[in-house]
C-alpha cells in the first residue's frame, strides 16, 4: 500500500509539471492565432477584421499568472475552453469526436503488433538459429526502417488503387451514417485494415526483437534446465516458464505505447485521410490554437501517466521483487 501511495504521489507531481509546461510552451511560440489565420487566408481576410476576431475569440491579454490560475481551475473542473481552429466548438467536443477513431486505429494496431510480435519473438528464441529466427528479424527490421510515409503510400497504391481490395480513405463510406449494424461495422473494419496494417508492419520488428532477446537470456536460466530435466512438455516450458519471465520488459513498453496511442498517428491520418487526434494536433499547432493544443496535450499526458500507473500496479502483481523492495 505504501508503494502504491508513493507512486501516486510521484505521478501527481509529474502531472503538475507537465500541465505547467503545457501552459507555458505554447505561449513561447511567436505570433497569435488571429494573425496566423490572417496569414493563412492570404488576402482573403481584410486587416480590419483582425481586431474584431480577436474579440470574438475572447483572446485575453490578462497577466500570465492570472491566466495560469484560471487554467489550473479549469483543468480541475474539466473545462478546456473553446477551440479557435474549430470555433465555436468546445475543445472537449473536438477531442471527443476524434478520440474514438484514434483509439480504434491505434489500439487495434498496437494489440496486433504486440501479440504477434511477442509470439514471433518467443518462437524465434525457442528455436534459436532456426528458420524463423534467422529470416524474420532482419526482414522486419528492414521493413520497419522504411520511411512510414513511403510505405503507407505504397500500400495505398498497391492494395487500394491497383488491386482495389481496400477503400482509399476515411473511416467509413461517404454518405453512410454511423450505426450499430453488421454492414456498417464491416465497412469500418474494411477501412481500418490498411491504416492499421501499415502501423503493425513498421512496429512489429521492435516487439519481436525485444522479446527474442530477453527470451534468450531467460532460456539460459537454471530453472529452464530444471524444467526440462523434469520432463515437462516443451510448450509448457516455453510459455509458462520462459516467456512468462521474459514478459516484464514487454509489459513496460506496452504500457508506454498504450499511453501514446491517444496522441494519434499523424502520418497515417494524412495518408489514409483517417480521422483522429494527430491531424487535429498538427492543425492546432500550426494555427496556434492554444486551447485545443492544451486539451490534446493534457489528454496525452493524462493517458501516459495513467497507463504507467496501471503498469506499476500490474508489476506489483507480476514481479515479486518489486513487492519486497
Amino acid at each position, binding site marked *: 500500500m505504501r508503494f502504491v501511495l508513493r507512486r501516486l504521489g510521484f505521478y501527481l507531481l509529474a502531472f503538475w509539471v507537465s500541465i505547467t509546461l503545457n501552459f507555458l510552451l505554447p505561449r513561447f511560440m511567436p*505570433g497569435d492565432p488571429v494573425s496566423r489565420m490572417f496569414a493563412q487566408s492570404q*488576402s*482573403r481576410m481584410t*486587416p480590419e477584421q483582425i481586431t*474584431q476576431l480577436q474579440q*470574438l475569440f475572447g483572446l485575453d491579454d490578462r497577466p500570465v499568472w492570472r491566466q495560469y490560475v484560471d487554467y489550473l481551475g479549469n483543468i480541475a473542473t474539466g473545462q478546456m475552453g473553446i477551440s479557435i481552429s474549430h470555433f465555436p466548438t468546445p475543445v472537449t467536443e473536438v477531442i471527443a469526436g476524434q478520440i474514438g477513431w484514434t483509439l480504434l486505429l491505434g489500439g487495434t494496431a498496437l494489440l496486433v503488433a504486440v501479440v504477434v510480435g511477442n509470439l514471433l519473438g518467443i518462437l524465434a528464441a525457442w528455436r534459436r538459429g532456426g528458420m524463423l529466427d534467422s529470416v524474420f528479424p532482419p526482414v522486419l527490421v528492414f521493413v520497419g526502417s522504411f520511411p512510414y510515409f513511403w510505405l503507407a503510400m505504397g500500400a495505398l497504391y498497391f492494395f487500394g*488503387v*491497383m*488491386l482495389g481490395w481496400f477503400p482509399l480513405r476515411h473511416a467509413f463510406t461517404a454518405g453512410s451514417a454511423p450505426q450499430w449494424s453488421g454492414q456498417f461495422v464491416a465497412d469500418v473494419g474494411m477501412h481500418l485494415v490498411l491504416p492499421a496494417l501499415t502501423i503493425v508492419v513498421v512496429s512489429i520488428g521492435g516487439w519481436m526483437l525485444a522479446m527474442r532477446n530477453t527470451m534468450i537470456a531467460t532460456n539460459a536460466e537454471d530453472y529452464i534446465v530444471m524444467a526440462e530435466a523434469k520432463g515437462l512438455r516443451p510448450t509448457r516450458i516455453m510459455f509458462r516458464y520462459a516467456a512468462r519471465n521474459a514478459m516484464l520488459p514487454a509489459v513496460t513498453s506496452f504500457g508506454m505505447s498504450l499511453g501514446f496511442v491517444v496522441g494519434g498517428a499523424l502520418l497515417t491520418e494524412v495518408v489514409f485521410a483517417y480521422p483522429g487526434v494527430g491531424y487535429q494536433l498538427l492543425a492546432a499547432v500550426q494555427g*496556434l490554437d492554444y486551447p485545443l493544443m492544451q486539451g490534446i496535450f493534457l489528454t496525452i499526458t493524462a493517458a501516459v501517466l495513467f497507463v504507467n500507473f496501471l503498469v506499476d500496479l500490474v508489476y506489483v502483481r507480476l514481479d515479486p521483487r518489486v513487492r519486497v523492495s
Partner: protein
Amino acid sequence: MMTRTTRSRRAARLAGLALAAALALTACGPGASDGGGTVASDVPLTIPREDMGTFVRNFNPFSPNVAPMTQQAVYEPMIIFNPADGSMTPWLASEWTTSKDGKDIVFTLRDGVQWSDGEPLVAQDVVTTFDLQKELLGGYEYLDSVEAKDDRTVVFHLTETYSPALSELGQQIVIPDHVWSDMEDPGKATNEAPVGTGPYTEVTAFASQSFDLGPNPHYWQPDKQQIPGIRMLAFAGNDGANLAAANGEVDWAPQFIPNIEQAFVARDPEHNHYWFPPTGAMISWQLNTTREPYDDVDVRKALSMAIDREQVIDVAMQGYTKPADCTGLSGGYDTWRDEDLAGSCTWTTRDVDAANALLDEAGYARGADGTRTLKDGKPFTLKISVGSTSSDWLSVADIISQNLADVGVKASVDAPDWSAVTASYEDGTFDTGIVWSNNAPTPYQFYRGVMSTQTVKPVGEQTFENYHRFGDEKTDDLLDEFAASSDEAGQHDVVERLQAEFDAQAPVVPLFPSPEWGAYTDARFTGWPTEDNPYATLSTRAPTAVLVLTSLRPVQG
C-alpha cells in the same frame, strides 16, 4: 548553393516520374475502370477539401471556421465580382445606383427571390446582415447606416464618398433576418440547418469526414439547379485529395496538384483538365524600408533587376504563373492595367549590368572580392524570410539569393515556421521576405496596402498590411481621388497614375501573381469555366463558385 538546388530539382523530377509511373500502372486496375462507365444521375458533385481533416457541422457564415461551401452554395451576395474577366454579375440585387455625391448607394433586390424555408427575401435581411457583420467581424468603417426603404430597396449611407464601397458591399453574403434576429449569440451559433437563398442549402447527410448538400426547394433559378447535390470530402493534406482526383473520384479539385500534366491530366486526357488563371494576390519580395539601404528607391529597383523572374516561375512555380510587371498589378486587374507602362518596364526584367551600374551609382561600391559594402562600411548582406512549410516560395527565395550573388549581394534564406515569419513581418523586425498582398475587386486596396502612409505603422507596433512600412504622400492623394470618383473613366485615370507612382517608387519588388488553382473532370458534369469561357475561376472558396454551381449540368447518357 547551385548544386544543392539542381540536385533537389532532379530528386523532385524523379519523384514526379515515380508517381507518374505508379499512376500509369494503376490505370489498368479496377479503381480506374469505373471512372467514366456508369453515370448515375443521383451522384452529387464531389469536391475534396484538403486542409480539413474533419468537418464540424457549423454553417454560420460569420464563423472563421465555417463548413466549406457555406458562403458559396448556401448563402449568396448581391453582386458577384469575377476576377477572371473583371466583370460584375448582378445576383440578389438586380440593379444599383450611386447618388451624385457618391455618399448613398441604392440596391434594388431581385424580384421573386425566396429563402430555402419559403420566406421572401426582403430589404430588412440586408440590414440585419450588415448589423451582424459589423458587430461580429467589423469592417465597413465608411458605412454610416443601412436603411430598408421598402421591401425591395436598400439604401447604404456612407460617411464619405468611397468608390470601392460598391463592390465591397455588393459582395457581402446576405443572411435571413427572420432566422438571425432571434438568435441568442449569433457569433457562437453553429446554424446546423442553414436557411439561405443559394442553390444548395439542404444538409442531407453529415458525417465527420463528408457531408452532402441538396438542392434548395425554393431557389430563384430552378432551371440552373442541374446537379443533384454537392458532396464534400475531408482530407488531412493534399496527397489524399490528389489521389482522389487522379483516380476520378472527385469532380472538382481546387487544391494544388504538383506536376499536374502527368499526375492528373495524363490519367484521362479526354476528361481531366485544369486552368490556373493568374488572378490571385500579387506575391512580392518585400524589403523593410525602415532600414538602410532599402529606404533607397535605386537599391530596391537594382535588387529587383537582379532577379530572374522567368527562372522563378519555371523552376519554383512549375510554370503555373507569369512574371509580374512594374505596375505591381495581379492578373485579376487586367482591365485596369496601363499596357503602355507595362510594356516599357525597366526594373522588373533581369538586367545584371544595369543593376550593377545602379548600385555603383547609388554608392554601394563593389570591393575587390566582388561583394558590395554598405555606406557604413559593413558588407551588403540580406536575409530573405519565408515560412518553412511553403516549399514553392522557399525555392523562390533560393533563386533570388542565387541571383543576388551576380550583383555582389550576399543573401541567405531564413525559413523558420510561418508563425515566426509573420510575427516579424507584423512588428517590422524582418529584413526582407516573400509576402502576399491585398486582393480586392479594385486595385485600391492593393495600392493602399503597399504604399499609403495611412497603413504605415512604426516598427514595433503590430500591423496586418504594409509590413515593409512604405508610405508615399502622392499615393495618398491619388487614393483619395479614387475613392471620391464615382465614374469609371475617372477611376481608370487615377489607377493609371497610381501605376506610374508604383513604377517610380518600387515600394515592394513584385514577383508574380499567385495562380488560382483549379482542376476538374467533365466525365460526369460539364459546363466548367475555361480560359476561353472565363465566367468564373475554378476556386471553390471564391464568391464565383456559385456561378460554376449554377452552370454545371450532368453529362447525358
